[in-house]
């Protein structure tokens, strides 16, 4: 998901990041139970099925023990019918166990997948209801990685973790019971070995997570360096940086190898300890069998059965211990998913200007800061009347975008009030083309829009050619996996969405800035079309946009420096006039 991190951009810039909460184990459990509500009996039935499957699994070793005893006693009970009967028991227990086991694993996966789906849907639902300022403080990247990476981590862990847990846990438990049935001393051997396993797991968990985290970080670093050079390939070539970058990539690539080997070493120690546990178990069974058989209270068939039971456990125990870190990272990710659900969505306070007509905006004494003691806006008075177009100009970093965000309700002002009436749409430089059809990209703004409405909107922003250019027309997949659009087309798409949403107030924050310089005129015309009949606040990037606005607001250091019509300001001897003169400086005349 390294592609998505670029969108952390603007709002993270130089601010204190305040991540969304992460839920603890108890909260995760509570929310998972809520998602499973009404399926309790399924859970109980599942446990019964898995226990039965495990129980069917110990029939064969016990039967083999009986065969050994039968063979030992030799001619006396040497009845082939006895062996055939045991064979029949073994065969039927295997069929039953396999059936129940499959049903159990499928059922367990199903329950867990249903829970995960419900949790992620609730997470996204909550994310869209959170105050946007809360999400902006956390950085949208945080949210994207929770919806993307964390959901993926859990989803990928399920196929290995669920069968291991479902199978191993019950198999181990039932095997201990089975050994106790042969002789409690055998079960005791197994219990004595448990601490060795526990120690092995503890040692593993103490060292492995950091090393795996280090390995993952090194891999991310490698991917990032590669992407860095690949994305900027033109610059790499232009500035002759290829050899330098190849060296850089080689260094971070080999750094991964170091981490992988460290992880391998920790795994090896873990395996070695498991081998010790296996040896102790096998040796213990031999010693117990030796004593029991010597004093006549046990048979070698019993020892054989216990040995086979234990041999059968090697796999499940390894599997169980081996998914421990998958399980751990899945739980950590679940905590981050559930954390969003528990973040309290507050309803946006109402800001109606009750008597005013729709499309009115009034900012009274607004001061805003992202970092305390560093005002981004200071003492702003501004009113927009319905249908009016106001352009905001000024150098970068003077608070234009903050003003737009406050009017749009993304942030609440620290001091003063922002009142607005009517529906609004905010379009920023950050356009996103969704990984869907062209139509779906547009109907997002109005779910019930007909094709005629969609085509009309595209036509009005000057993008009719886009539909004919794409082979599939409105059905053409666009976005990250579809046909790429030019920056200008992406911005036309964003403007067409506004037409479909049909709000009373439009805020355009440099919404037409990314196109090439000739596309600029076309985009400016589209923006003007979008603003027709609405109140428009436009953070103007080119002064040509200011020239056509009803009113121009010039910002300087978080304050409004000049305000008036373009004609008045351009004629006066102020900062705007100087700016306009530089901008409209006539290009050299024709020779």
């Amino acid at each position: 998901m390294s592609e998505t991190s670029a969108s952390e951009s603007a709002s993270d810039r130089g601010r204190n990041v305040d991540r969304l909460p992460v839920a603890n184990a108890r909260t995760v459990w509570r929310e998972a139970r809520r998602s499973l509500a009404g399926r309790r009996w399924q859970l109980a039935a599942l446990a019964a099925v898995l226990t039965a499957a495990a129980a069917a699994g110990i029939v064969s070793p016990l039967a083999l023990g009986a065969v050994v005893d039968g063979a030992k006693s030799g001619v006396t009970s040497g009845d082939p019918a006895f062996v055939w009967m045991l064979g029949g028991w073994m065969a039927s227990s295997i069929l039953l166990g396999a059936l129940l086991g499959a049903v159990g694993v499928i059922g367990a996966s199903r329950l867990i997948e249903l829970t995960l789906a419900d949790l992620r849907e609730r997470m996204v639902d909550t994310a869209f209801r959170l105050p946007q300022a809360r999400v902006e403080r956390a950085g949208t990247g945080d949210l994207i990685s929770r919806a993307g990476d964390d959901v993926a981590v859990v989803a990928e862990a399920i196929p290995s973790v669920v069968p291991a847990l479902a199978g191993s846990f019950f198999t181990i438990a039932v095997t201990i019971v089975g050994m106790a049935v042969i002789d409690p001393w055998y079960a005791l051997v197994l219990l004595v070995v448990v601490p060795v396993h526990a120690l092995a797991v503890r040692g593993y968990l103490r060292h492995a997570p950091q090393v795996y985290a280090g390995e993952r970080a090194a891999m991310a670093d490698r991917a990032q360096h590669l992407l860095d050079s690949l994305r900027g390939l033109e610059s790499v070539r232009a500035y002759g940086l290829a050899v330098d970058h190849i060296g850089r990539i080689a260094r971070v690539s080999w750094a991964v190898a170091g981490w992988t080997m460290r992880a391998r070493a920790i795994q090896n120690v873990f395996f070695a300890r498991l081998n010790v546990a296996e040896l102790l178990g096998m040796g213990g069974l031999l010693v117990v069998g030796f004593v029991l058989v010597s004093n006549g209270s046990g048979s070698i068939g019993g020892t054989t059965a216990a040995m086979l039971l234990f041999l059968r456990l090697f796999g499940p125990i390894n599997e169980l211990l081996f998914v421990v870190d998958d399980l751990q990272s899945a739980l950590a990710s679940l905590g981050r998913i559930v954390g969003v659900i528990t973040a309290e969505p507050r309803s946006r306070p109402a800001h109606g200007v009750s008597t005013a007509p729709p499309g009115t905006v009034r900012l009274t004494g607004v001061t805003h800061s992202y970092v305390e003691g560093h005002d981004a806006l200071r003492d702003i008075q501004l009113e927009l009347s319905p249908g009016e177009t106001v352009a905001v100009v000024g150098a970068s970093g003077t608070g234009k975008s903050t003003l737009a965000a406050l009017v749009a309700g993304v942030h609440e002002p620290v001091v003063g009030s922002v009142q607005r009436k009517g529906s609004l749409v905010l379009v920023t430089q950050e356009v996103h083309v969704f990984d869907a059809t062209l139509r779906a990209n547009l109907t997002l703004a109005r779910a019930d829009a007909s094709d005629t409405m969609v085509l009309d909107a595209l036509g009005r922003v000057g993008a009719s050619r886009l539909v004919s250019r794409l082979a599939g027309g409105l059905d053409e997949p666009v976005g990250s996996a579809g046909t790429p659009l030019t920056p200008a087309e992406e911005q036309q798409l964003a403007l067409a969405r506004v037409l479909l949403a049909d709000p009373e107030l439009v805020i355009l924050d440099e919404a037409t800035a990314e196109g090439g310089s000739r596309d600029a005129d076309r985009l400016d015309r589209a923006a003007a079309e979008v603003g027709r009949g609405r109140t428009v606040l436009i953070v103007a990037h080119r002064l040509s946009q200011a020239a056509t606005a009803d009113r121009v607001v010039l910002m300087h250091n978080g304050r409004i420096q000049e305000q008036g019509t373009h004609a008045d300001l351009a004629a006066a001897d102020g900062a705007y006039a100087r700016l306009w003169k530089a901008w409209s400086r006539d290009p050299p005349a024709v020779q």
Partner: protein
Amino acid sequence: MLLQAPAEPIRTRPIHVDDATTPRRLTLRVMAAAPRYSVPAAVLSITHQVGEALVPVLMGLAIERAVSSGDLGQLLLWLGLLAADFALLSFSWRFGSRLGELGMLAVQHRLRTLVTEHLLLRASGARRASNQPGVALSLATSDVNRLSAAVEIGVYPVGQLAAVLFGGSVLLAISWPLGIAVLIGAPLLLWLTERAGRTLRTRSGDEQAAAAVAAGQAADLMAGYRVIRGIGAEAEASSRYRQTSQSALASTLLARRAEGAFGGTMDVASGLFLTGVAVAAGLSAITGGLGVGELIAVVGLAQFLIDPLQYAARNAGGLWASAMASSTRLLALLREVGPDATSVTRSRRSAARGIGLVAEGEVVGVAADGAEAEAVIAALEEAHPDALAAPHEAHLFTGTVWQNVALPTVDAARARAALTAAGCDELIELLPQGWDSPVGENGSTLSGGQRQRVALARALAQDAPVLVLNDPTTAVDAVTEAAIADRLRQARAGRRTVVVTHSPALLAIADRVVRIDRTEPRTEAAS
């Protein structure tokens, strides 16, 4: 610690790629690229697996000779042998797996370097899928990883096969009919269940892919979070997420069902096979044909052999298949030919005609964009081979503002001057650590305009005799742009400069302006 990765990459045999290389041959070359590691690893892997196979044999003998006889000396002897076997299997795994991993990593690194060199040094060419950074990244990471994993085929499956052969010969020694039954029956059984399970697994794979696509779409929806909030489409987006999540869920559940059914089938097959062996061995034992210890060994071995057989078949097959697929993709990349240069030449020529040669100290403004701009730039590069054509896309590399501008050939004074000329002086105060602030991945900690100014500074700092700038200030606000235009002139005094743009502020500082519409140049005079 012993056998860690050294500080410098391990050298491997060269991996050659030429016209005669087939995917198969490339995969084999990769497998054989680090024999100093993979051969000892294979030997140790064999030792490990034989040690594992010995466990049930030793246990059977121990039960027969020690437990049933009550001889304490025998018990101690067999316990000692068991311990020795565990030591053998444990240590051989420890060193074998580490050597194998190290060899694989060395090959992987070599392969990745080969691919990166190709990606970064190849001539630029249009219409290649690998021009997309995402596609290229996946080639340099996923595909390189999968192809280099072929090294493991020569290590672990070899050990597993050795275990099967060893177990088979022990069985043959105990009872040749049983041995033959197991040696022929077990692989046959696996082959049959694999065949039966193949459709199930294919289906599971398809469903998993569908689930991954749906999950990706869901994540993409969140990537457009600000856009969704901006147009007030929260409810619609939430319901769309629910839809994709549910279709991902449906696919996943089908996949899980297929996997569960496959696992069940394998259990039935191997379980019934074991039962058959046990019944046959039991019948032979009660008639006195087999001793008790032999009976235990046979049953234990038959149980043990299932695993290595399964793994050998599945691992080797799976590793080979995925290595071959990646090998095909990587070969296509490594063998690609350069772009066809003739097609653009004509439009270049006509584009270049109006511009003519740029005189020393001259700043030429070219009003063009799109394909015309590209043609103009290509023509200028042809006319002035020493020209630096700064790309329009302001891509900054990981590092600080300063590191992005002060490239290896640039001295500090020139970098400072260039930063100032490009209007980056204000960044000293705006950014937390001034010019030493990291620009973030893709320059993401800077705004679009800031990014563009740093990129412009980088180009100016090169002090190229001929500099071609392509729309360098589209994201810069009008106030700053006017300032940059003036400083740009001074910074390029005495050099040749071409600015391709429609910006009035930039065109205003040019000595002459060439307007190009559909490659028809029209020259305007100097002021």
